[in-house]
């Protein structure tokens, strides 16, 4: 029974991690770099959602809508500010690292400007937890899981079945060839950031619900990174699987050895994966050709 509880809690946690890791993976797949501003974007969107919607008593759905829209817009703005010239000038991709971190600093600075070091809390969106026998399932977990699952299914549909999704996949595979085939690479990359931003906004709200709203909430993006590595960098299904696994493992670890040491074990698990199966559960093995 206890294991079932772990699994349920783990899946709830994992679904939020899945939003984070897929948002992160979309950019990684298309641009081949780690967008370190993703965490701060989540925080910024969550706070905007709070100040515009939640603190005015608008309820969960409007808050989500505001956060998602914020995520999309800010992500687009960020792309222009930090990444566009690197892409166009074909500067070494090493610079994405620096500009994404700096962009994150910018986003976080904006949040701190408004909020200082204060904590904020979303109002109560949910009722009492459900009891199924000896299992306890909180309403927020169910709703978060459902919305996340829905969002990911929509994402899968867009990537697999729409023209823009195909464009995304082509650009991920080979940017130059895609552009030679007539794909507007800049538009496609903007689209990738819109998707990533939307997922960030959604993830931010859910993190804010599960924890509290504070300026460095975005540092939880590390979980998304680790989930992506475990699941396999370069694979969207891998990001989801990795996130679920991470959620369940973490829940089990926290219940047994306490939340303090959990990061240590998460790191060790990640190391083990990298040593034993570097391409992750679902990632692809890319070999460099001469």
């Amino acid at each position, binding site marked *: 029974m206890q294991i079932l509880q772990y699994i349920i809690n783990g899946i709830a946690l994992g679904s939020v991690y899945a939003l984070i890791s897929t948002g992160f993976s979309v950019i990684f797949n298309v641009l081949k770099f780690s967008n370190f501003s993703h965490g701060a974007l989540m925080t910024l969107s969550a706070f905007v959602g709070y100040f515009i919607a939640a603190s005015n008593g608008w309820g969960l759905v409007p808050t989500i809508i505001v956060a998602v829209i914020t995520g999309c817009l800010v992500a687009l703005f960020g792309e222009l500010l930090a990444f566009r010239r*690197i892409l166009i*000038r074909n500067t070494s991709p090493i*610079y994405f690292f*620096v500009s994404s971190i700096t962009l994150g*600093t910018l986003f976080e*600075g904006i949040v701190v400007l408004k909020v200082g070091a204060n904590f904020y809390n979303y109002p109560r969106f949910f009722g009492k937890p459900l009891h199924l026998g000896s299992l306890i399932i909180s309403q927020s977990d169910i709703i978060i899981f459902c919305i996340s699952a829905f969002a990911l299914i929509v994402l899968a549909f867009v990537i697999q079945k729409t023209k823009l999704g195909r464009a995304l996949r082509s650009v991920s595979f080979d940017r130059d060839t895609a552009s030679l085939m007539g794909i507007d690479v800049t538009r496609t990359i903007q689209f990738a950031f819109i998707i990533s931003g939307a997922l960030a906004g959604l993830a931010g709200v859910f993190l804010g619900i599960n924890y509290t709203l504070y300026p460095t909430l975005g540092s939880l993006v590390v979980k998304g*990174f680790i989930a992506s*590595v475990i699941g396999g960098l370069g694979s969207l299904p891998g990001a989801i699987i990795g996130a679920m696994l991470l959620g369940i493992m973490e829940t089990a670890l926290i219940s047994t050895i306490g939340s303090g040491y959990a990061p*240590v074990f998460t790191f060790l698990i990640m190391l083990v994966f*990298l040593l034993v199966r570097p391409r992750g559960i679902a990632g692809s093995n890319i070999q460099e050709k001469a």
Partner: protein
Amino acid sequence: MSLYTHILTQILITVVSVAGVFVLTGMTGMFSLGQAAFMAIGAYTSGILVTKLSLPVYVAWPAAVVLAVAVGFIVGLPTVRLRRDYISLVTLGFGEAITALLNRATAITGGASGLTGIPKITTLPMAIVSAVLVIALIMFFKRSKYGRQCIAVRSDELAAKSMGINVPKVKMIAFLISVAVTAYGGCLYAFYTAYVDPTLFGWKKSAEWVIMVFFGGVNSLTGSVLSTFVLSGLPEVLRFLQNYRAIIYAVLVLLIINFKPAGLLGEWELTPANVKRLIARSGQPKRTKEVD
């Protein structure tokens, strides 16, 4: 002690760590978000050895650096064989793990409230000498066989291997030098501020150092040093703009990345030869276009 002495000492201590990051990231192209964790290991180990075990400083500091290098070797073993993208994520995870450990092992480290009571030993002259020594060592390294191989590895790993370069070995050397130097910076830091706590050594700090290297010019040690002064000193000077500091800093860096990605100094190093060339060129009259 005046405010300026204080700021200068802290900047110089940062220069020591940034020089280490220059070797690892600037020269070898490995992006680590965990170097600050090695500064923590240096700071905490030396602090604990002196405060809890009453070891003399000249034993504690080398011991701290040795421990850091040992840990660095263990972390480095899998890391140097990873693809570039993974290195930042693994080192990030490592940094988080160390922060968690420091927070939890309250009995030894003082936990979240930090380690106090460290004697104040570091002085401005010490900081200056340390910074100069480290810069000199790394200048030598840059012109040495391993320095060249680091740059080759950064530029094209496959070609480097084809020329007989043992890539994991070169990466490990760069990594360990960076770790040793950063750990030493940690000792300087702990024995200057007399207090350390886990929040000082997170991935954001590691990221700051990487940004300083890029800001100054990835191929220029002089640039890294200069940008450390600029990017560390500026927030202090702009104290009155308290809340806007992070934003101004971010905008500055984004401007450089967008408009001069080669960094402030690009490739230019402060060497006798280059200084001579600079003086010679400024003495020449400006060339005018030939009009036929």
